[in-house]
């Protein structure tokens, strides 16, 4: 899947952007900044998906992940964040020992991962060698097979079609289970986030807790 030309350029741009944004997510002082950096990281990754010819997934990522999950994150940040970090009254990182240990482990882990990726890929290439030109030629042949778009400058790929047919045929059971999972998640989150008054009015409190809480308030 060797990218070349403009694809390579955009790969590097979006790749480095994703990494950089992720880094900043973790290191930002303000929680809202963290969220925004995460959004940008996600969008960069979506772009990478497009480069990897997974257009449908890129769309799903942006719609669901960015449009749903991150918005939810932002709502919750509004609800709970008191801004103490940005004021400087609270630390953003844990105590030193924790951070040091974490960094050591993470460095070890990333070292191992990178080494294994490179070694593994060399092995993989030795098995299935493919020069970039041949690959590009094969890709262009494949691309010819697709229908051109309305404007004629690009082609309409069959990615959505293949994902959909696979999802509704071979992966239909996980699909249904996923829907049930979502249902459970909806119910659960609604139930978890109820206030005391909401729980009392729905008669979901035992009397002791009610007494304690009412007296405490």
């Amino acid at each position, binding site marked *: 899947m060797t990218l*070349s030309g403009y694809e390579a350029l955009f790969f*590097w741009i979006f*790749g480095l952007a994703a990494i950089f944004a992720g880094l900043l997510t973790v290191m930002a002082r303000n929680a809202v900044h963290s969220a925004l950096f*995460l959004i940008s990281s996600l969008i960069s990754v979506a772009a990478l998906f497009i480069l*990897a010819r997974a257009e449908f*997934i890129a769309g799903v990522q942006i719609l669901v992940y960015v449009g749903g*999950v991150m918005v939810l994150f932002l709502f919750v940040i509004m609800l709970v964040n008191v801004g103490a970090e940005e004021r400087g009254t609270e630390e*953003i990182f844990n105590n030193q020992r924790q951070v040091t240990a974490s960094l050591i482990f993470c460095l070890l882990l990333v070292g191992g991962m990178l080494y294994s990726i490179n070694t593994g890929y060399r092995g*993989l290439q030795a098995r299935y060698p493919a020069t970039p030109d041949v690959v590009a030629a094969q890709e262009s042949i494949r691309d010819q097979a697709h229908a051109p778009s309305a404007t004629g400058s690009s082609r309409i790929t069959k990615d959505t079609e293949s994902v959909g047919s696979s999802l509704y045929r071979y992966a239909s059971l996980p699909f249904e289970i996923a829907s049930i999972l979502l249902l459970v*998640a909806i119910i659960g989150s609604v139930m978890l986030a109820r206030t005391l008054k909401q729980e009392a009015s729905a008669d979901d409190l035992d009397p002791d807790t009610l007494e304690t809480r009412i007296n405490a308030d």
Partner: protein
Amino acid sequence: MLSFFNVIFLLQEAETRFDMMKRAAVNPDLSKFLVIGALLFIIGVAGVLTRRNIIVIFMSIELILNAANLNFIAFSRYLSEMGSVNAVAGQIFTVFIIVVAAAEAAIGLGIVIALYRNKETIWVDEIDLLKW
């Protein structure tokens, strides 16, 4: 005398290596995708382990999941070119990971809300009820 030959050898080495690097840079392939995925993963792990704000920890978890998604998609592309029949499975998997991540985020944030209502704090090191 020896140093001369060594230098030439090293220069040749450097040149070969540089060429390789150039080629790698100009034609990124599967391994580059995986590297980016790994780096994102590590950043996410570091974030989970080091940050005090609970929301930021959740966001780091999202980073981790994202890195996994990238991995799947990269392999999906690679395998579809290698001629595997079921290369689209990677994308299917990604769909489900996104679904699960969304559900998990929803529940998790619900817990954060409940937690905040009870303990009035979002700093994880203040939530240590399990401490001896």
